């Protein structure tokens, strides 16, 4: 609903009404970052679904479609981000959900960022970024998305 047309972005409502899936693809068991991000998104007003650890790209795409989320956030600290991101984006396409924007966070070396963006990822985040900036950039990435 667009009852807040051009109101200035108050931090707590930046993501109001947005549904966001935070997902952990692959085999890595690092979940601190995913949980930190899930809570930060919630505190920015989002409705957050967290998949839990070790999910396949197909599982993540199915949940994204059923929940009709506004964004999928992949949290990857295993080093397998290239394969997992490519597979997750392919799985979304197979479910007819290519329109859902994908964000990636975790231990992503700077030299891999361009490659992920080429795959269609909206933005890539690492632990050295300020949480507020991460949330603001996710919100910016969602603005103008078809809903």
């Amino acid at each position, binding site marked *: 609903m667009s009852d807040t047309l051009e109101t200035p972005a108050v931090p707590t409502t930046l*993501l109001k009404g947005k549904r966001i899936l935070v997902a952990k693809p692959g085999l890595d068991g690092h979940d601190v970052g995913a949980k930190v991000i*899930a809570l930060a998104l*919630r*505190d*920015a*007003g989002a*409705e957050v679904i*967290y998949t839990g650890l070790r999910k396949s790209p197909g599982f993540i795409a199915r949940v994204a*479609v*059923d929940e009709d989320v506004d964004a999928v956030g992949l949290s990857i600290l295993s080093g397998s981000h290239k394969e997992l991101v490519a597979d997750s984006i392919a799985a979304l396409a197979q479910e007819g959900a290519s329109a859902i924007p994908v964000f990636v966070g975790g231990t992503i070396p700077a030299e891999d960022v361009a490659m992920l963006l080429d795959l269609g990822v909206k933005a890539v985040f690492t632990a050295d970024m300020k949480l507020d900036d991460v949330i603001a950039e996710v919100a910016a990435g969602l603005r103008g998305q078809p809903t």
Partner: protein
Amino acid sequence: MNVAPRSPILDRRALGRALSRAADAALADILATPRDESRHLARRIGVTGPPGAGKSTLIAALARHRLARAGQVAIVAIDPTSPKTGGSILGDRIRMDGLVDDPRVFIRSLASRSATDGLADNLPEILGVFDDFGFDEIILETVGVGQAEFAVRDLVDVELLVLSPGAGDQIQAMKAGILETADIFVINKADQPDAAKVEAELKATLALTAPGEPPPVLRVRADAGENIAALDAAIEHAAEHQAAHGPDARRRRVRQRVRGLVWRQLTAVLARLPQEALDQPLPALYAAVLAGLAAGPAG
């Protein structure tokens, strides 16, 4: 739209999108395009009870049994919205991972938004979408209830109240509320030492509050699937006595629907009220709020 039963859900993307439209629909839009109440109706099973009792785990176990009876099963799970930020963590479906690969199951998580009755804004509209898509059954998990939220009663055909050991004190507190409305009582976590004690306490309380035939009380272990078949059978039995498709059930649903819409409008009117308005005498304030309600939805 009539999808043949016992088949996979055909267009999950379309269904997912339709559910979002229903959830986000403005009051004015809902009133402008009222749903047809006389179409196919999915049977609705409501699952309520305190946080942590095992509702989500139980639904995961129960759905497997229901699938043997129904072609397509929807699960709708509600978690609370923070009144401060409007945000929420929708954590129920994490207990239902094993169902995600089943093409006949559709799980949807909802935030309560402005609703404070254990349900969610636009819930009747959202559930109606599953009717449109030909689902046979909907299992609805409410927000973990305190003691007074029994609005779910009007929305479902069969209501389950899930309790677990350690809920002894809650039973006392609950007796005037949902204890009177549930059709089936489930004591979950039968593996824990106090399960028998809770069951005895519950039965004693029920004997006092509900005269006549005592409602079924079942002890189960949701995380191991124990005694879920008996619960499944009890649901079937209760549903047969409910005449889910009769005029009474329909009217109950309509009552809850209109209540939900008025509640949303009331929340909006109160939010728009200028601070000074709260300084006027109560009768004047009351009249102002009623006038706000009568003015109808704004946008």
